[in-house]
């Protein structure tokens, strides 16, 4: 039995969808679904949810790299088999949650997790720095402007104590996207690490005819910087190709997405921008986009010290200055962005003044401002 390459369509099964979630619920979840009364975080990484029936679901949350091996997943399974009747779940932020149905099962579970070196850090709850969601980076993507797993490892090492504690004014959601496509949707994060390109695409006139639909490449540019042009390939033949008006290029990389003959990645051109103050919850203030406060930091593998230091600085100034329960964006709004730059010592540059579409909405049109060292 099994796949028969001579008859690929034989016994073919399609469109059956994912397995039904209910078969994977721990018993306490299945029995109390929809009946939960309240929850409490009893220590960093440990939550109890209490049902109307009096039943309790204790959850131990551990951070994980997003990139993990089946060997590690099997080890997670060993833990879940030993403590959780074979059930576990993953969160949207790449954490793993082990659930048990009574308090006395929590400490043995934590002891087991902690006995396995640094593989299963307990934390990621409450007013902590969350696990950093991220994209693929150099390990698996064709358009990145920076690495993902490496930068995240360096940043999380430095901020590790904040993952396993709950002493910040409010939670900080940290995210990395390795290019402007933002597969990781970092645009609404408290602190976003964003890979950026800074050199316009090159044009491979030898490859463009075979690889690209020229009208699609031209239409891909939101600023009309890609135009049709005649060019000469390495054989000396005149071919139909494109040219790029570099002054108009905003380095979004959309042309490369549409046309593989227009690569723009570059060791010196590429690096990282830092954006802050976004959030998605509707709590107190409305959901907000993150704002670019540092337009460029270089790619410095293996540990990206400039990026790590910049983030640590923002976290520490925020931790000292913000009110309780105030997210980074709410803090910036309250004190004013001029005070954000003043207090963090981050240089304000022309790059933080929007000059793309709808930019006017972000310019200050009031006499209400604070005097800082800037003026």
């Amino acid at each position, binding site marked *: 039995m099994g796949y028969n390459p001579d008859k690929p369509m034989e016994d*073919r099964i399609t469109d059956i*969808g994912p397995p039904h*979630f209910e078969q994977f619920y721990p018993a306490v979840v299945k029995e109390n*679904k929809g009946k939960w*009364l309240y*929850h409490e975080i009893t220590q960093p990484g440990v939550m109890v949810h209490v049902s109307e029936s009096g039943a309790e679901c204790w959850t131990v949350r551990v951070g994980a790299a997003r990139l993990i091996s089946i060997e590690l997943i099997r080890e997670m399974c060993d833990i879940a088999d030993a403590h959780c009747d074979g059930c576990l779940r993953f969160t949207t932020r790449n954490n793993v949650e082990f659930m048990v149905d009574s308090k006395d099962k929590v400490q043995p579970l934590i002891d087991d997790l902690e006995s396995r070196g640094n593989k299963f850090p307990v934390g990621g709850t409450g007013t902590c720095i969350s696990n950093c969601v991220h994209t693929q980076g*150099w390990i698996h993507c064709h358009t990145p402007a920076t690495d993902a797993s490496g930068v995240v490892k360096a940043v999380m090492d430095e901020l590790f104590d904040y993952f396993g504690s709950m002493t910040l004014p409010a939670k900080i959601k940290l995210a990395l996207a390795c290019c402007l496509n933002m597969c990781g949707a970092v645009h609404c994060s408290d602190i976003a690490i964003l890979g950026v390109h800074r050199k316009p695409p090159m044009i491979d006139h030898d490859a463009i005819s075979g690889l690209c639909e020229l009208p699609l490449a031209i239409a891909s540019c939101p600023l009309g910087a890609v135009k049709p042009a005649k060019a000469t390939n390495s054989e000396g033949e005149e071919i139909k190709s494109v040219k790029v008006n570099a002054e108009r290029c905003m380095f979004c990389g*959309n042309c490369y997405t549409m046309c593989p003959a227009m690569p723009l990645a570059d060791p010196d051109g590429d690096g990282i921008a830092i954006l802050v103050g976004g959030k998605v919850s509707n709590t107190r203030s409305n*959901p907000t986009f993150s704002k670019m406060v540092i337009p460029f930091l270089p790619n410095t593998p293996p540990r990206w010290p400039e990026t790590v230091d910049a983030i640590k600085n923002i976290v520490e100034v925020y931790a000292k200055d913000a009110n309780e329960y105030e997210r980074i964006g709410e803090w910036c709004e309250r004190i004013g962005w001029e005070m954000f730059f003043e207090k963090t010592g981050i240089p304000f540059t022309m790059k933080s003044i929007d000059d793309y579409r709808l930019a006017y909405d972000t310019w200050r049109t009031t006499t209400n401002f604070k005097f800082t060292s800037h003026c």
Partner: protein
Amino acid sequence: MPKHDTPLLDELEKGPWPSFVTDIKRQAETKPECWDILGQLEVSFVDKITHWKHGGIVGVFGYGGGIVGRYSDMPKQFPGVAHFHTVRLNQPSSKFYNTAKLRAICDLWEKYGSGMTNMHGSTGDLVLLGTTTENLEPLFYDLTHDLKQDLGGSGSNLRTPACCLGTARCEYSCYDTASLCHHLTMHYQDEIHRPAFPYKFKFKMSGCPNDCVASIARSDFSVIGTWKDDIRIDQAEVAKYISGDNKPNGGAKSNASAFDMERDVLALCPTGCMRMKGDELQIDNKNCTRCMHCLNMMPKACRPGLVKGASILCGAKAPILDGAQMATLTIPFIEINPDNDYEAVIDVIEEIWDWWMTVGKNRERVGETIQRVGLPTFIKVLGLDPIPQHVKIPRENPYVFWTSDEVPGGFDRDVREFRKKHAQ
């Protein structure tokens, strides 16, 4: 034994956070192609640039999504990753698993792939990283026959829907997000597997306005649980927060100051709809926008009301190309009813798709189409009445697009008649 020297990556084996480098090395002991993952990544760390080629169309027969082609641009040096395609498995709703299922997936990936995964990808899929073109069909056969599960979406189709954990383990959730997510996933298998849209389309479901799956920021069709009636208050528990017997914010802050109702709750309420009258917490529910702050601060004392449903918001996306968009409130309250197979939600989805598949341009997210044609057009398409909830503020400019039939006498006029009374 390591196949390549990786001095830069070895630096990332140090430090307290789990090391993906250590993990890949461990996997390489049984899946030697993992040495080539590390080898090529080390070159990227030296060169500060990726070494993956652009795209490559691969897939399983009959599907237009679920597999993403990937090829190394250094295949001679790193033959183990010459082909290194991604397989997206549609995750179970809310990402609950049992170990039997996970071990079966691990065994499948040991047989056909590199052994490396993402748990999970940003959209929600369980992502298997790195296999060859010839392994795709046998993998798909085993996946559907033995594991009885399926691929997720990629390309210009319905992407794998995702949800928060909902009523399964959360007291805030106003509807069963997992059931709706699963139902829509099963209902739209064709749309997930066979790209027929102008561009990608994402469903995300959150049980309450805390929006733990960030649906408002990243989904074309965001379903966020809400309630219509009064917040349920347990005054005895309110008293325990005031006396310090209950931990504020569900214990989320270990160094929280002693609870202060005025400072921590009333003053932070964005609508100012709460007050203390003696020992009693009073909420003017008519003026509440259900932001969740008081529920988050006092989970034992405040609960969502009982008339529950969801708000539908449309058109969120990340910045490429015209800038990021938040989802726009489209339907303030919709019934989430499993007994009629979520008829109300499905009706809205189909209206949007019928319209967007006709007017949407190539690679235009529905939020961009709505921007291009205007929110009034979108509201009309859905057959909705305009309501103040659709806007933050009314129009500030005077440029109304009146139509001929809205003005007495219409647009056709005779300029000669006009001139009889008004000399040039």
